[in-house]
């Protein structure tokens, strides 16, 4: 219901009054290259690991606990392979997240949108900054990234897969 969203945002606890909660996320997914394929196959696989931080009250210590939208920051490492090319990248992203569940040990993202950038190194010879964007769903995620190399955009790619929280207890899951 749209008014539920409006009410949640309007009456949410200010972010600066909420405690921080961290999450360790590991993921595995399918990688699709969106650009020219002269040196690689279209599809491959990727694995990733991330540290996430949100600002949210704990259900254990807040009598009127409710799920609240929250800023999220994330540092992520991703290694991908499609026949012909390997790459390894480190990126940082910021955005907004709505948790599916929150407990003392962490949380499970219910939905999120993030953007950011980082650095990548690839066996195709490219090395340099990247621009990334991500959306997260429950236990899942999709991410696009493109490398800036030799003055041009290079190797745009999409990855879709599972995103599994490691640190969250499952009190409300």
């Amino acid at each position: 219901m749209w008014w539920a969203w409006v009410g949640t945002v309007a009456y949410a606890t200010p972010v600066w009054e909420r405690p921080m909660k961290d999450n360790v996320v590991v993921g595995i997914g399918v990688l699709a290259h969106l650009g020219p394929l002269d040196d690689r196959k279209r599809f491959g696989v990727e694995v990733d690991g991330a540290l996430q931080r949100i600002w949210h009250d704990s259900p254990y210590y807040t009598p009127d606990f409710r799920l609240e939208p929250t800023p999220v920051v994330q540092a992520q490492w991703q290694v991908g392979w499609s026949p012909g090319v390997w790459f390894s990248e480190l990126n940082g992203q910021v955005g907004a997240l709505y948790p599916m569940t929150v407990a003392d040990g962490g949380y499970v993202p219910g939905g999120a949108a993030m953007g950011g950038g980082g650095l990548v190194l690839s066996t195709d010879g490219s090395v340099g900054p990247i621009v990334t964007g991500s959306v997260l769903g429950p236990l899942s995620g999709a991410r696009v990234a493109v490398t800036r190399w030799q003055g041009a955009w290079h190797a745009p790619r999409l990855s879709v897969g599972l995103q599994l929280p490691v640190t969250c207890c499952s009190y409300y899951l």
Partner: protein
Amino acid sequence: MGAHVVVPLEATEGRRPVGVGVDVGYQVQWYTQRSGRFDGTFVVWAEEHPAWSYGPVTHLWWQSGHWHHSLGARFGVAWPLRVGLDGDWWPGPAVAAEAGLGLSTSGVSGLDVQGVVEGPWVQGRVGGVVTPQGLVAPRLQLGAFTPLGAPSNPPPFDSDQWKAPDGA
């Protein structure tokens, strides 16, 4: 985390003979904690002697005109120094082996293997990337590193940590 210079153990063919790199890792260090009662006082202390040390580690370095990266694990034996009772320590002498995925902008991908010798704040490594074509990008790395965590000071003498547990 640390930084190092890279000396390629291969022909550099006119390229710069020395490169540079950085290291980031997380080490789990085992040590032995002992306790006893001396003259009626319960005492807890940590023994500083070689013990298992392991954890994830990653390196990024420039060698022979290309960027290289490895991400893997380290396993070895290390002598922890100044072990704190809450688990923090300073690295002492250590020997270890590392293995992980190695990638390079030269197109190389394979198993990056390294042998490591460390002293307090200094490190030396010998390694290369094992590929189906053999060992490539062999190198010697010499550098320094520092722990980002540090032992805490002993707690005050009236701390509960110095009191004997029930039955001790």
